[in-house]
Structure formats: structure tokens, C-alpha cells
């Protein structure tokens, strides 16, 4: 087990810069999830930690030692690939023991390690099979086994669950998390799936265009997104954004949305009148009646999802999604009254996208 420190790491492919001077310290035993849309540089960073990609600038340390010029084989890390990358011409047992055999592990110890790993992952009956005779989930497990068996300094996961169907993904998600709890190994997990990020991470690193947008625990990121990108990326269905302006209002401040004014508690608005983006999560909008619900919108679409109902509404020309646990009896075209609880509002600077307050 080891910590991983990334200092000022950049990477360009020709004129295209994919990572802009990134800093990140991963503690020993931590489970870090790198999340972001495709092309944000998350896989590149992972491959640089693994040694599969040259480091453009900056340094990467694993367990305190700089690994910039070390070959992958000398970094003592394990990686689980999206494609699983199982050696098709070898049995499951050979796949899993490949690294141990390369390290000339004594036969006895190799056998023990293999048996132990197979037991943890429930792979005992499959050891003599070839990868092609396994199902997707089993292949995934073997890929995990191949990583676990050698007890590396750190685990790297490159979207390991994206080739599985939804149910299996959910199950493997929990299994990987449990495995991490029992092994306590430093893990870096790359995904574009924000649910995986939320459920598995000790800390999430949200990446966009090669720049770290925010680092924090899943709930920190969810509750206090640092900017519009993070706010929109984390959470499903995604946060609603409405354009408006923020102005001083006596002691506090108020938000103006079209003809609507919402009071907010803000220490001091920076300018007299400032254009903003108002963010509110679909599950935080309340469908209500009476003077308590001052906002009136029109229902466009009702999507019953069982546990919740997703309403698409139109508020002054802007699309609004509302997630409701009650089952509001609404039909498309009907008016609906809404309330935005004050504590649930996220304010972002319209120009920079940064969080206000």
C-alpha cells in the first residue's frame, strides 16, 4: 500500500493539451474516483500513473518515490481495464498468476495466493477455464483477481464496469467497494458515470478539459458544487439552471428571475446587480399549492419512474426538471405551482461559472 502524489502534471498530444498542470495527493488506502466526460483527461492521468503514457511535465510519486522514468513493471501497481484485457490463450488460473510467475514466486506461495484470491472472488470453479468460456461478470471478476493476487502498492481502475449490464454493474460496484474495505488498498478509479463516483469514492476528483474542477467527498461535491460544470455533471437527473440576476436587497440579497424575486441569505453581494445562474436540483423543487408556492410553471411531460416521478416543466421558456416522491396528478399542459426552498439554491457567477457564497 502506498500514497500517490501528483504534482504539476501536464500532458499534450502535439498541439492539443489534455492535462493542465494537475496536483493531487492521494492518501494511503484512499479510494479516489476521477470523474468527468470523455476527453477530460481522466484516462490519460490514470495511464500516466500506470506508466503506459509518458509524463509530459511534473512528477508522480508512488509511496514517496518518483516514478516518472520507471517502466510499468517496476511501479508495482495493478490495473483493471475496461476491456478486462484477459489473456485469451491462458486459463483463468494462468491469467491470475501471470504476474506472480514473472516475479518467480515460489510454487507454494503462488498456489496459496491464487487459492486465496479465487476464494475471495468466488472463482474456484472457473480456474481451468479460458476467458472466452466466461460471462461478462466472470471476466470482470478474473480481471479483479489478476490485480488483487499480487498485493500491489495501488490499484488503478479504468472504467471497469462500463461493459456490464445495469444490474451486474450495481452488484460489482458494491463488490469492489467491499473489496476495498477489506484490502484497504489505495485505489484510483476512472469513470464517466457519476453514480459510480458518488457510491464508491472516498473522494471524488471532477475533471473537465484537463483541469481539476473540484476535489471533495461525494456529499461535499453534491451539496456544494464549486462551479456550473460540477453542479451539472454530478447528480441525475441533472441540476436545473435558470438565468437571472443577483442584487442587493436591504440587509440581504435577492435573486430576480424574469418577473420573480427570491430572497437569499448572502453576506454581501459583490456588485449592485450581477448576472447569475441559479441552480436547483430536481429533487429539491417542491410541488405545492397556495401562496407558499410562488412560482408557476407549465407541465410539459410526466415520466413515472416508480419510486419517483419526473416532471418536465416550462418556466418562462426555460426547461425545468422536478423529481417528486409523491405522485402528483398532473397532465401535460397543466399549470403547476412550485417552491424553491431557499437553503437548496446554488448560485453561480454567469460569467465565470464559479459558485457564489
Amino acid at each position: 500500500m502506498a500514497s500517490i502524489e501528483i504534482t504539476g502534471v501536464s500532458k499534450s498530444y502535439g498541439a492539443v493539451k489534455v492535462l493542465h498542470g494537475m496536483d493531487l495527493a492521494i492518501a494511503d488506502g484512499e479510494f479516489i474516483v476521477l470523474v468527468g466526460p470523455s476527453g477530460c483527461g481522466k484516462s490519460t492521468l490514470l495511464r500516466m500513473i500506470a506508466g503506459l503514457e509518458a509524463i509530459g511535465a511534473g512528477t508522480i510519486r508512488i509511496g514517496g518515490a518518483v516514478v516518472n522514468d520507471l517502466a510499468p513493471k517496476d511501479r508495482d501497481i495493478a490495473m483493471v481495464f475496461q476491456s478486462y484485457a484477459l489473456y485469451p490463450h491462458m486459463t483463468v488460473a494462468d491469467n491470475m498468476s501471470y504476474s506472480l510467475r514473472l516475479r518467480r514466486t515460489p510454487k507454494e506461495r503462488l498456489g496459496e495466493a491464487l487459492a486465496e484470491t479465487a476464494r475471495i472472488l468466488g472463482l474456484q470453479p472457473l480456474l481451468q477455464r479460458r476467458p472466452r468460456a466466461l460471462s461478462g461478470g466472470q471476466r470482470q471478476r478474473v480481471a479483479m483477481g489478476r490485480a488483487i493476487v499480487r498485493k500491489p502498492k495501488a490499484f488503478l481502475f479504468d472504467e471497469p464496469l462500463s461493459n456490464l449490464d445495469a444490474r451486474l454493474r450495481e452488484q460489482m460496484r458494491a463488490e469492489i467497494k467491499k473489496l476495498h474495505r477489506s484490502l484497504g488498498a489505495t485505489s484510483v478509479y476512472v469513470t464517466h458515470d457519476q453514480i459510480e463516483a458518488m457510491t464508491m469514492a472516498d473522494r471524488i476528483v471532477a475533471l473537465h478539459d484537463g483541469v481539476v474542477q473540484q476535489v471533495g467527498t461525494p456529499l461535499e461535491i453534491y451539496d456544494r458544487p464549486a462551479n456550473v460544470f460540477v453542479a451539472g455533471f454530478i447528480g441525475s437527473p441533472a441540476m436545473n439552471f435558470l438565468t437571472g440576476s443577483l442584487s442587493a436587497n436591504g440587509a440581504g440579497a435577492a435573486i430576480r428571475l424574469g418577473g420573480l424575486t427570491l430572497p437569499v441569505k448572502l453576506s454581501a453581494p459583490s456588485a449592485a446587480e450581477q448576472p447569475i445562474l441559479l441552480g436547483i436540483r430536481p429533487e429539491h423543487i417542491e410541488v405545492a399549492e397556495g401562496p407558499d408556492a410562488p412560482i408557476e410553471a407549465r407541465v410539459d411531460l410526466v415520466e413515472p419512474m416508480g419510486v419517483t416521478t419526473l416532471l418536465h416543466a416550462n418556466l418562462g421558456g426555460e426547461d425545468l426538471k422536478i423529481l417528486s416522491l409523491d405522485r402528483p396528478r398532473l397532465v401535460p399542459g397543466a399549470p403547476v405551482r412550485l417552491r424553491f426552498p431557499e437553503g437548496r439554491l446554488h448560485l453561480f457567477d454567469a460569467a465565470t461559472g464559479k459558485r457564489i457564497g
Partner: protein
Amino acid sequence: MKPATLRRGAYWVMHYFLISLYVLAALFPLFWLLKVSVTPEMLLYSEGVRLWPSEASWEHYTSVLRHTDFPIFFENSVIVSVMTAVGVTLVASGAGYALSRFTFPGKYWLVGLMLITQMFPLVMLISPIFKLFAPLHLTNSLTGLIVVYSAFNVPFATFLMQSFFDGIPKDLEEAAMIDGDTRFGAFRKIALPLTLPGIAATLGFVFTAAWSELLFALMLISKTDKSTFPVGLLSFISKFSVDFGQMMAAGIIALIPAFLFFVLIQKYLVRGLTAGAVKG
């Protein structure tokens, strides 16, 4: 019977009829080769056109093996073809892997250059090659033939091998490198075993090309003891007569190595030619 069943039956008959027609047409010359080779000399012209002689004999085979230089030609051909096939496949595996996996300066031009070598009719190149080889003592030498055959086969074989390596996910070697292998170790233990079908296909392709090559063998070699069998076959045609019986017997014998070779590699070959056709 239902019309659908009837129609399917009719298709089946048609299907196999056409295939048999093709196989028949393709194999008939081979059959004729065999038929003439076992027809005794005295019956060759006297019996008219028959599918099988009234009496068969091995006399042509024994005289080819005992009284002609054919065994030497045969041996020369085996040496040249095996050396070419093995050499070319080794080079093409390495080159194909490099083209498939690495980016390096000049790669684009290198590929273009290799493609250009395939554009010229061989006949055009005979005199310059002869001119180059004579002072190097590579004419009248099996080494010279191996060099020429290798040079002409390496580009195509490289492209062939490259396409096989392209079909193997990069992830596999990366996984091996992370598992603790070197780049070369990953190539040898992961990529190479997975390209066995490709290697077999390349070996087969180059072997047959070298085995049946006539033009260079004829032009670069004038001594009997260095001739290969395609040239040797021509020696059965003299000014006044053609010894069909011996020529056909020699032809049958010459088929044997190629036949054995393909029997050996066919398992890989079939996989190789269809590899990547379906997701496996």
C-alpha cells in the same frame, strides 16, 4: 411436401451443384496431372483420351527420381522456400508489430516506400538485379534467390502481419507490462501466441510464392545443380519432344511439400483467414 421445404431443397441442390462444379473445374488439372503421371509411356499416345489408363505404373516416378536431376532441384526448392518463408515471417512479424504499435518519425513514408516496391512488374527488375547480383556472386546461388524472394515478399507479409497485430487489443500487452513484463516479453508471450494463425498464413503465403517462382529462378540461375524445381520442370521439354510422363510425375512430387505444409498449418490458416470476422 410444403412449397417452402421444396424450395429449400431446390436451393440445397443448386448450392451443392455449383460448388461441385467449381471444385471439379479447379481439381481437374490436378487429376490430369496424376493420370498422365501414372500412364505408361507406351499407352501415352496410343489410348486416346481416357479418364484413366487401362494399365497404371510408377515407371515415370522411378525414372524421375533415378535418372534425372530432379531430386537436386527438389532439394534446392525446399531449401530456398523454407529459408525464405521463415526469414520473411520473422522479419514481417517484427516489422508488422512495429507498424501496428508504435508511432515513429517517417512511419508514413516507410509504409509508402514499402507499397511502392509492390507496384513494379518483376520483369522490369530482372536486369538491374542481375547486374547487382553478379559482382556479389549471388547469381547461380541459392542465397541469391533467397535474398530476392525475401525482398519481394517482406512488404506484403509485413502488411499481412500488421493487420493481424492490429486485431489484437493493445490492452493485452499493457496488462502484461503492468503485470511485470517488459515490452518484448509482452510481445513474445502475449501478442505472438495470439497471432499464430497470422504467422501460419504468412508462412504459407510466402512458402508457396517462393516454391512456385519461376522467373527469377530461371534468370539468375544457369547451373543445373542450383536450379529449383520449376526450372527443372522445363528441362523435360527438349527441342524435339516433351516428356509428359516424367514431367507430370515430377509435378506430383513437387506438390507434396506444399501439400504437407498446408495440412500442417490449415488449422491455424482457417482461423487466420477468418479472424476478426466476428466478435469472439
